[in-house]
C-alpha cells in the first residue's frame, strides 16, 4: 500500500490513516526478535502466532520488535495496552499467555519479574525497577514498533521532525536548535553536535557528505546495535536532518559487518523510504534532496576514528590522518564531511519535534538529555539502560542494574572500553557526566558499562585492553605502534608474576608519551585502562609484583585453582575435596594439615574466601568447601587415633612462641614439623586464644578446640599454660633461656572504648564485648535480664548479641552507626542473629550513657547519616539534634578490639607503630630486633581465623629461614599436594548444571536461642560425597589441555 508522498500534507494524511488502523486500545503482543533471538525468541514468536491463529483472536496483533532492553531476562514478551511484561518465555508458555492473559486478562505468576528482595511477582512493566528508574526517550520506540515496518515508525510520530523542519525551519535554525539543546556527541569524545554541524555548514566546497558512524567497536557497548536493529528510522531521520542542516545531499552509514540484523533492518528501511519518496530528490516537495548508502566495515576497530572511517569508505586501508585539515574542511573524497554517531543522530528528531527547551528538561547544566548505557558484566540486570545525564552511577548499577550477582562485592565499573577507565566503589555517588568521568580517569565513551566484582583482577583487565589496542593499532604512527606493544609486554610480565617495581614507573612514562604523541584517538587513549587501574588499584599491581598474588585469583601464571589461591593459607582445596569424594577422608585431612593445623575449627568458623572464588559458583552455587572440611575433620577425630609419635626433632635450635592462639599454635606446629623444638607460652590456663575466648559455644564448641590443640601437642609442640610473658618473664628472658627466636602472637584482646560521656566501667550493667564473652565461656554467665543493648557491627557484636539472648535477656537490640551494607560482620552471622529475633538498628550512633546511682538506665543515640564529600567519597555525620533514648538494663559495647602490648617492658627496644602494636616487615614478620618476630591479630588488628593461621605459617617459614641463615623473602606459592587425587569429579560424569549445593541442617531459631547447642550440623557422609562431586576440578584444566 506504499505510495509516493509528494507533500507534507500527504505524509500527515498517511499518519492519520495508520493511527486509525492501529487504535491505541488494540492488543499488541510484542516479542523481542533481535537480542532475544539467541534464547529462542523466534520459536516463541512462532508458537504465539500459531496459538493466536488457532484461537481466532482477530483483534490481537503479534509484533516482532527490537530490543526491550531487559536482556538479562530474555526472551521478553510485552503485552500492550495491558502494560504487562513477561520474561524468560519459552514456546510452551504461548498457550497460557494466549488463553489466560489475552483472553481472560489473567496474569501468569511464573513468567513475571520477581522482586529481588521479597520475591513477589511484578507484572507491570512500569513497576519493574529496571524500567521504573529509567527515562526512555531515545529508546521509546525500541521494543514497541516493528523496525521493519516504516508505518509503525510514522504512526509513532516518525518523520514529524523532518516535515516540521522542511516546512518551517532554515538550516541555521536547525543548527541553533541543536546548539541550544546542548547535545554532545554520544560516540565518545563528547563534542557539541550543533558546533560540529555549524563548522560543516560554514565549510566551503561541494558536495558535502554526512556520515553515520555505526562502527560500534568498543568491546562492551551495544546500544548502537540495538538502535539500528530496533528503531533504524530514528537514526535515518536524524541523518536527514543533519544533511539538511549542513547542506549535504549524500549520506553514508558505515556499519560493522558483525551486525547482520542491523544491516538488514537498515536496508529494509532505506528501501521503504525510497518507495515512499522520503529519500531521493525533492523530498515531500520541499526541494530537499538526499540519499543514503550503506557501507559495511570489514573488521577494524580503528575505523571508528573518523578519518580512518572515511579512508575505509573510500576502500583504502583504514588508517587515520593527521588533523587539521578537519573532516569539516576536507573529509570524504576531500570534500567537507560530517560524522555523527548513531545515538547522537537518534536524539536529533526528539530535539526538532519537541524543541530544545523540552529536551533540556533533563541532564546537567553543561550537557542535556539522556544517555544510553549498555550494562554488562557482573551485574544482575544486564541490558540497555537510558538515563538522564547526571544520574549517579550507583543508581544505574544498583537500582536499575540490581547490583552484583551472588552476593559478591562490587569492585569497579569499566566505562568507555579500551579508551576509558575504571571507576571504583568510592566514586559511585558521583554524577555521570562528561566532565566528572574525565576527572576520574574514565570517559563517558560510547556508553559501555562493564561491572566487575571481587573476582576480577585489575591488572588482567588492563592487560586485556592493551592486548586489544595493541592488535587493533593500525601501525601508522610509531608512538601507538610501539607504545601499545611495550605497555602490553610490561602488563603481561606483571600478570605472569615476573614484574619488577620499576615496571610501574615505566608504565606511567610510556603511557604519558603515547597519550601525548599519538596520531589519533586510539593511541591517545590506549594507556587509560592501565593508568586508571594503577590509580585506583595500585595495591593489586604491587601484590602481583612483590608477592606473586592475584587478589581476583585470575592470572593463570600464579593461580592453579581460584579456591586455593583465595585461601590465605593456600590449602590445596580441589585435592581434599576430591579425597572426600573418593571416601579418603583421612587423606583429605592430611592435605588440609599441610597448610592449616585447624581443620575442624575452620570447618566451622572460617569465612571461606575459597567459596567466593569457586568456579562452580559461575554455574550455579559454589561448592560448600567449608562444610566438606568440617566433615572430613570430624570424621578424622571420630575415627582416627591421635599421632603416636611427635615430629622428629632434627635441630638443636629452639623457638619460643608467645600466645597459644591460632597464629601461635600454627607457627609452633610448622616449626615442629620442620624439626625445631617449639614451646608455646600461654598466659591463661587453656589454649585457643581468641577461638577460646570469643567464639561462642553455639558456633564453635570447646571440645573441638581441645581436640585440635591436643593433636598439635602430640605432634611435638610443648605448651606451657599459666605462663604469661610479662615484666616478670620478659622476651629477653626467653632469649637468655636458650630460645634462638621468639614469635609474639598475643592477639588483639583489649576491647576498645566508645569514648562518650557517661562511659564508666563501674556502672552496673555495662560490659565490654570480649570480657563478656570470656566470662560466659568460662561458665560464669553474667545473668542478663530485661532489655539488652549491643553497640557495634562486627562479628564480636553479633556473637555478643546472640550469647545475650541465650543467657536470659528478654530482648536484644544491636545499634550500629553505619548502614547495614557497611556492617563488617559476615552475612551468615547477621542472618542467623536476625532469625533469632535480634533487632538491628543501623545509622544510630551512641551519644551518651545514662545511669542512676551507678546502675545503667539506657543509652542516648543520635541519628547518623552518610554525607558525600565533593570528591564523591562519603563520611559519617552525626546529627546531635536528632536523638532518642533507649532504656535498657544492660549494655554491651563491642566496637572493636586492639592488641594489648602492655606486657612488653617499657625499656623494650622493639619498634612499635602508632597504634601500639609492633612494627613488622609484612613479608617476614620480623621486628626491628633480630630474632624477634610477631604476627597474627597482634600485628594486624582483629582479622579472621584463617588470616591468623596463614600468618603463623608465614612466621614459621621466615623463622626457619632465619635459623638456617637464609635471608630470602618469603614466597608463599600455590603448590599441589603429593597426596593428589586424579578424579575429575563433576566433569567426569554427566553432572548437569542443575545440581545446587547440598545444605547442612541448622537448628531452628526457636529452639536454638534457648541454649548453647551448635547451630549448624555438619554433612552426613552421603551429603559430603555428593557435595564433593560437584567440584569441577578447574585445577586440572592446565593438565587437561
Amino acid at each position: 500500500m506504499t505510495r509516493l508522498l509528494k507533500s507534507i500534507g500527504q505524509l500527515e494524511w498517511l499518519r492519520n490513516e495508520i493511527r486509525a488502523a492501529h487504535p491505541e486500545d488494540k492488543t499488541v503482543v510484542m516479542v523481542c526478535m533481535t537480542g532475544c533471538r539467541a534464547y529462542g525468541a523466534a520459536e516463541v514468536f512462532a508458537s504465539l502466532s500459531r496459538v493466536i491463529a488457532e484461537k481466532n483472536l482477530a483483534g490481537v496483533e503479534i509484533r516482532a520488535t527490537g530490543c526491550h532492553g531487559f536482556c538479562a531476562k530474555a526472551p521478553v514478551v510485552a503485552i500492550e495496552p495491558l502494560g504487562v511484561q513477561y520474561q524468560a518465555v519459552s514456546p510452551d508458555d504461548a498457550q497460557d499467555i494466549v488463553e489466560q492473559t489475552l483472553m481472560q486478562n489473567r496474569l501468569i505468576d511464573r513468567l513475571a519479574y520477581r522482586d529481588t528482595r521479597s520475591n513477589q511477582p511484578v507484572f507491570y512493566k512500569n513497576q519493574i525497577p529496571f524500567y521504573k528508574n529509567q527515562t526512555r526517550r531515545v529508546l521509546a520506540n525500541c521494543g514497541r514498533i516493528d523496525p521493519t515496518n516504516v508505518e509503525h515508525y510514522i504512526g509513532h510520530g516518525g518523520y514529524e521532525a523532518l516535515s516540521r523542519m522542511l516546512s518551517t525551519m532554515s538550516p541555521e535554525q536547525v543548527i541553533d536548535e541543536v546548539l541550544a539543546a546542548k547535545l554532545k556527541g554520544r560516540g565518545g569524545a563528547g563534542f557539541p553536535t550543533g558546533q560540529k554541524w555549524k563548522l560543516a555548514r560554514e565549510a566551503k566546497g561541494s558536495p558535502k557528505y554526512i556520515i553515520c558512524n555505526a562502527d560500534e567497536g568498543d568491546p562492551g557497548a551495544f546500544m548502537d546495535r540495538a538502535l539500528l536493529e530496533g528503531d533504524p528510522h530514528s537514526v535515518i531521520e536524524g541523518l536527514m536532518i543533519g544533511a539538511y542542516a549542513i547542506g549535504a545531499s549524500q549520506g553514508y552509514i558505515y556499519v560493522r559487518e558483525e551486525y547482520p540484523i542491523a544491516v538488514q533492518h537498515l536496508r529494509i528501511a532505506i528501501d521503504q523510504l525510497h518507495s515512499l519518496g522520503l529519500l531521493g530528490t525533492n523530498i515531500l516537495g520541499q526541494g530537499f534532496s538526499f540519499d543514503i548508502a550503506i557501507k559495511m566495515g570489514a573488521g577494524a576497530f580503528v575505523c571508528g576514528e573518523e578519518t580512518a572511517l572515511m579512508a575505509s569508505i573510500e576502500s583504502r586501508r583504514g588508517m587515520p590522518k593527521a588533523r587539521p585539515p578537519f573532516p569539516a574542511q576536507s573529509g570524504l573524497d576531500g570534500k567537507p564531511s560530517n560524522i555523527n554517531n548513531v545515538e547522537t543522530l537518534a536524539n536529533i528528531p526528539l530535539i526538532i519535534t519537541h524543541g530544545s527547551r523540552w529536551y533540556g528538561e533533563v541532564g546537567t547544566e553543561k550537557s542535556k538529555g539522556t544517555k544510553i548505557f549498555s550494562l554488562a558484566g557482573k551485574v544482575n540486570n544486564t541490558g540497555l539502560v537510558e538515563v538522564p545525564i547526571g544520574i549517579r552511577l550507583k543508581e544505574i548499577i544498583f537500582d536499575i542494574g540490581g547490583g552484583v550477582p551472588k552476593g559478591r562485592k562490587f569492585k569497579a565499573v569499566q566505562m568507555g572500553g579500551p579508551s576509558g577507565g575504571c571507576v571504583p566503589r568510592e566514586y559511585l555517588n558521583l554524577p555521570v557526566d562528561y566532565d566528572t568521568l574525565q576527572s576520574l580517569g574514565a570517559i563517558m565513551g560510547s556508553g559501555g558499562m562493564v561491572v566487575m566484582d571481587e573476582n576480577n583482577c585489575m591488572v588482567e583487565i588492563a592487560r586485556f585492553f592493551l592486548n586489544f589496542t595493541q592488535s587493533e593499532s593500525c601501525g601508522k604512527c610509531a608512538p601507538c605502534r610501539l607504545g601499545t606493544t611495550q605497555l602490553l609486554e610490561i602488563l603481561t610480565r606483571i600478570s605472569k608474576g615476573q614484574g619488577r617495581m620499576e615496571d610501574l614507573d615505566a608504565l606511567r612514562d610510556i603511557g604519558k608519551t603515547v597519550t601525548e604523541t599519538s596520531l589519533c584517538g586510539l593511541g591517545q587513549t590506549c594507556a587509560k585502562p592501565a593508568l586508571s587501574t594503577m590509580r585506583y588499584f595500585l595495591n593489586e599491581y604491587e601484590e602481583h609484583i612483590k608477592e606473586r598474588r592475584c587478589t581476583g585469583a585470575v592470572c593463570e601464571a600464579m593461580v592453579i585453582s581460584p579456591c586455593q589461591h583465595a585461601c590465605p593459607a593456600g590449602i590445596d582445596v580441589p585435592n581434599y575435596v576430591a579425597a572426600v569424594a573418593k571416601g579418603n577422608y583421612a587423606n583429605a585431612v592430611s592435605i588440609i594439615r599441610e597448610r592449616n593445623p585447624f581443620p575442624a575449627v575452620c570447618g566451622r568458623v572460617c569465612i571461606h574466601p575459597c567459596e567466593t572464588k569457586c568456579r562452580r559458583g559461575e554455574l550455579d552455587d559454589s561448592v560448600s568447601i567449608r562444610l566438606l572440611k568440617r566433615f572430613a575433620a570430624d570424621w578424622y577425630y571420630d575415627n582416627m587415633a591421635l599421632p603416636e609419635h611427635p615430629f622428629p626433632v632434627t635441630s638443636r635450635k629452639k623457638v619460643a612462641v608467645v600466645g597459644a592462639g591460632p597464629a601461635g599454635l600454627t607457627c609452633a606446629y610448622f616449626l615442629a614439623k620442620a624439626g625445631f623444638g617449639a614451646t608455646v607460652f600461654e598466659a591463661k590456663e587453656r589454649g585457643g586464644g581468641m577461638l577460646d575466648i570469643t567464639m561462642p559455644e553455639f558456633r564453635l564448641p570447646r571440645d573441638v578446640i581441645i581436640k585440635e590443640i591436643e593433636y598439635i601437642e602430640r605432634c611435638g609442640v610443648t605448651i606451657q599454660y599459666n605462663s604469661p610473658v610479662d615484666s616478670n618473664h620478659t622476651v629477653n628472658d626467653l632469649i637468655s633461656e636458650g630460645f634462638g627466636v621468639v614469635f609474639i602472637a598475643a592477639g588483639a584482646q583489649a576491647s576498645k572504648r566508645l569514648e562518650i560521656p557517661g562511659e564508666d566501667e563501674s556502672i552496673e550493667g555495662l560490659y565490654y564485648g570480649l570480657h563478656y564473652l570470656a566470662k560466659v565461656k568460662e561458665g560464669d554467665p553474667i545473668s542478663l535480664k530485661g532489655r539488652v543493648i549491643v553497640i557495634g557491627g562486627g562479628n564480636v557484636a553479633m556473637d555478643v548479641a546472640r550469647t545475650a539472648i541465650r543467657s536470659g535477656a528478654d530482648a536484644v537490640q544491636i545499634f550500629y552507626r553505619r548502614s547495614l551494607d557497611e556492617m563488617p560482620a559476615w552475612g551468615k552471622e547477621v542472618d542467623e542473629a536476625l532469625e533469632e529475633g535480634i533487632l538491628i538498628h543501623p545509622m544510630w550512633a551512641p551519644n551518651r550513657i545514662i545511669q542512676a546511682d551507678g546502675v545503667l538506665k539506657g543509652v542516648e543515640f543520635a541519628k547518623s547519616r552518610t554525607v558525600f564529600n565533593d570528591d564523591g567519597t562519603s563520611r559519617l555525620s552525626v546529627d546531635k539534634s536528632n536523638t532518642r533514648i533507649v532504656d535498657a538494663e544492660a549494655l554491651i559495647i563491642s566496637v572493636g578490639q586492639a592488641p594489648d602490648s602492655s606486657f612488653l617492658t617499657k625499656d623494650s627496644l622493639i619498634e612499635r607503630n602508632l597504634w601500639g602494636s609492633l612494627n613488622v616487615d609484612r613479608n617476614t614478620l620480623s621486628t626491628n630486633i633480630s630474632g624477634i618476630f610477631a604476627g597474627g591479630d597482634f600485628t594486624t588488628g582483629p582479622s579472621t581465623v584463617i588470616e591468623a593461621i596463614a600468618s603463623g605459617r608465614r612466621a614459621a617459614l621466615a623463622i626457619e629461614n632465619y635459623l638456617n641463615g637464609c635471608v630470602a623473602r618469603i614466597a608463599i606459592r600455590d603448590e599441589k599436594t603429593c597426596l593428589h587425587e586424579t578424579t575429575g569429579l563433576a566433569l567426569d560424569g554427566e553432572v548437569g548444571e542443575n545440581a545446587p549445593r547440598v545444605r547442612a541442617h541448622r537448628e531452628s531459631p526457636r529452639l536454638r536461642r534457648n541454649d548453647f547447642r551448635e547451630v549448624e550440623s555438619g554433612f552426613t557422609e552421603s551429603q559430603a560425597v555428593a557435595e564433593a562431586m560437584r567440584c569441577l576440578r578447574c585445577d586440572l584444566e592446565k593438565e587437561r589441555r
Partner: protein
Amino acid sequence: MNTQAPHIDPQRLESIIMNHEVGKWALIPLLQTIQEEFGYIPPEAVMPVADHLKLFPSEVQGVIEFYSGFSMKPKGKHVFKVCCGTACHVKGSRSILTSIKKELGINEGETSPDFSCSLETVACLGACFLAPTLMADKEYYGRLSPTRIGSIVDHVKGSREDEKP
C-alpha cells in the same frame, strides 16, 4: 564426514569480478562479495581484482590484510567465533575458549584438517548481555559455561548436516 578444501570455480570468480561496478571506492564491496561467495578470498583473486579496478595488486593485498574481516585462507564449513569482548572476558570467556579448543582440537585462527570447523575469536559481538557468548555460523549462543560447549559443538555440526541432502 567427507569435507574437503572448498573448490574455487574460476569462471564464477571471474564473473563476480567482471560484473562488479568499477566506480570509485569499489574495492571493499567487491572483496566482500567474493568472500560472501567463497567463504574466503582465494589468492588467485588478487590479480584479476587489481586489473579490474585499475589498482596495484599490492593495494588489493594491503586492504585484504589490513581488515581482520578478510581471510585468504579457506574456512571450515562451520565457523565458531568466540567473543573476547570486555563483558565476556570479565565473565570468563577464557575458559570457554579453552574448552572449545579442546572440543574442536584446533587453536584459534585455525581450521580443522577436514575443513569441517574453524575457530576464531572476535573483539566483541555486541551481545554483551549474553556474556560469555559465541557465534556459530549465524547463531548466537549465550550465557555459556565450559560444560555446555560439547553439546553446542555437536548441535552445530549435527544440525547443519541434517539439512544437507
